[in-house]
């Protein structure tokens, strides 16, 4: 790459180096591991942890009351059987897509800039999937019977109903979580070894030692290691695409106008990546400053992620257009009315907001100034996160409130308990992420070393 690098057209010129100059292997190891082993946590970290813990308390309390009283506490009704719970589930799962995408697909496409952000993004994936995972449990009418959805052999010879998209979800999401966890842990092993070797305190040394599985950086190990890592990446790529495809089946497989459409899988996946990258940036922009990682997570990374957001944002926008077009082109009264109602009906405000957030706002990313400036970029990512939540809200609610029989039309609004569960899940997210940056290297050290090596040899810039 270095040779051609000279004569790249300015538009494609990289805005910043992958790593600020003046680093060597040791300085990299120190910079990352000292956050965990040496330095005290920065003040904002305590704030985040505290906030997360507080919101987590809200989640606990509201959930306890929900289980005691029943789902009537939520805004759901006939005909709107699904509400916040499903919206949040899909939203979190979508967010969870960034990590695996960065670590797997960018790995396969050989994108060097993934190095500094994949560990962080993968951690975010795992936490986001956890957040998503609590909603099916809260959502069902009889949580105590939820194990019925697992294929457990039993004397009544009762099995799950394998044609249900919800069951596909169970397998898709649990597989996604497990594989992401394996992938993430695989990436962690050499870094755990680093922490083991650098930590002075016996206890830390022991824990990291156990987790490192006795990794000693043998060339033979590295050889198999890289093969395994590549394979995991290779299989995660289709997996990550399948997961949101299957989540979109929850809607696409049904008969409800506004749900029953073939555009959903691609447009859900794009939306997932879109929101995922937005969330990665939302967290990374402050974190890189709080923990002094600006040397490794440079403007270059922000710029590239912003570009991916722009691309996926445009795909999502295309999805909206397609949806509307198909509704009209189908000639079906159900579809046409659904779309008209979605735009002009009682929830038109939500549709307008989501267009503003998801279709209009990303257009700012055409400007390098926005892509490379943390503050506007941060604001933009928040807007996109809101927009993607609204998208799921619009899809779920507008389709259910006005389907086939006018006599059965209804309306929906979340109650305080819906909101409690939602902010509660955000609390869980903040809490877990705080613990992650406290105890595990937020950047893949060994890959940084490799990258440094390549930079030193001028293989990459």
């Amino acid at each position, binding site marked *: 790459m270095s040779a051609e690098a000279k004569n790249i057209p300015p538009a494609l010129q990289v805005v910043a180096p992958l790593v600020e100059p003046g680093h060597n292997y040791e300085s990299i190891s120190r910079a990352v591991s000292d956050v965990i082993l040496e330095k005290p946590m920065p003040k904002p970290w305590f704030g985040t942890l505290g906030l997360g813990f507080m919101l987590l308390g809200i989640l606990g309390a509201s959930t306890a009351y929900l289980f005691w009283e029943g789902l009537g506490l939520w805004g759901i009704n006939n005909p709107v059987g699904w509400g916040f719970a499903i919206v949040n589930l899909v939203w979190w799962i979508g967010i969870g897509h960034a990590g695996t995408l960065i670590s797997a697909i960018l790995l396969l496409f050989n994108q060097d800039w993934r190095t500094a952000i994949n560990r962080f993004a993968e951690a975010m994936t795992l936490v986001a999937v956890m957040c998503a995972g609590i909603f099916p449990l809260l959502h069902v009418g009889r949580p105590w019977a939820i194990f019925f959805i697992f294929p457990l052999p039993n004397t009544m010879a009762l099995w799950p109903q394998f044609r249900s998209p919800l069951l596909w979800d169970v397998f898709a999401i649990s597989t996604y979580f497990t594989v992401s966890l394996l992938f993430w842990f695989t990436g962690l092993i050499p870094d755990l070894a680093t922490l083991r070797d650098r930590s002075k305190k016996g206890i830390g040394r022991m824990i990291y030692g156990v987790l490192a599985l006795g990794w*000693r950086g043998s060339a033979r190990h590295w050889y*198999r290691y890289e093969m395994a890592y590549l394979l995991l990446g290779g299989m995660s790529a289709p997996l990550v695409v399948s997961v949101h495809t299957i989540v979109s089946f929850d809607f696409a497989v049904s008969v409800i106008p506004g749900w029953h459409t073939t555009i959903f899988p691609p447009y859900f996946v794009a939306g997932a990546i879109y929101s995922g990258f937005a969330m990665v940036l939302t967290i990374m922009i402050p974190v890189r400053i709080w923990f002094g990682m600006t040397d490794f997570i440079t403007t270059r990374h922000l710029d590239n992620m912003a570009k991916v957001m722009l691309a996926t944002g445009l795909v999502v926008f295309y999805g909206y257009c397609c949806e509307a077009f198909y509704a009209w082109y189908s000639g079906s009264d159900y579809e046409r009315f659904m779309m008209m109602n979605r735009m002009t009906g009682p929830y038109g405000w939500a549709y307008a907001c989501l267009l503003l957030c998801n279709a209009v706002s990303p257009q700012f990313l055409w400007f390098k100034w926005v892509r490379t400036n943390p503050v506007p970029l941060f604001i933009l990512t928040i807007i996109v996160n809101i927009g993607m939540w609204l998208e799921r809200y619009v899809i779920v609610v507008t389709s259910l409130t006005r389907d086939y029989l006018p006599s059965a039309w209804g309306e929906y609004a979340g109650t305080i308990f819906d909101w409690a569960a939602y902010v509660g899940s955000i609390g869980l997210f903040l809490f877990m992420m705080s613990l992650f940056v406290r105890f595990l290297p937020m950047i893949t050290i060994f890959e940084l070393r490799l990258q440094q090596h390549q930079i030193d040899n001028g293989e990459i810039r």
Partner: protein
Amino acid sequence: MSAHGHEDDTPKVHGLIAEFDDPETLVKATTKAHEAGYRTMDAYSPFPIHGLAEAMGVRKTYVSLVTLIGGLTGTATGFGMQWFASVKHYPYSIGGKPLNSWPAFMPITFELTILFAAFSALGSMLLFNGLPRPHHPIFNAKRFERASSDGFFLCIEETDAQYDTDQTKAFLEGLGPVEVSEVLE
């Protein structure tokens, strides 16, 4: 324990280790050692160095094959489970669909394929690497903790057929290491 075992009660030697200060020298050294006929040796680096394993004559790994087999097992398990439950063990009529609604069974089949493959990949990698292994003599090597940060090591083990304390030491000295030292078990 090889035939060259020492009779006296001095601690056993694991091998001779040379530290290098950059990857390139390590690769060169390893290549030379391999050419010189050393086989039972290993190189240690804080990050994967392309060509290093090859330099030691490592040519292939079975990780990918195991992963493939694992994946196929997942496929069979996934579809088999659904078919058995829906067609054989407890058949019931759902929405006018046939018992074996195979298109609807595809998603779970796919997911289990990936799941099994992933476990096989990580599992076989660890298995072939003999991990987890909490302790290894190499950890006794001087400054070896740097192997997880910026140290590059080549260790020719005592069990190697050509191993001879003095000659091997001399040989390693000749490769431009920072330092050569003996690793005790």
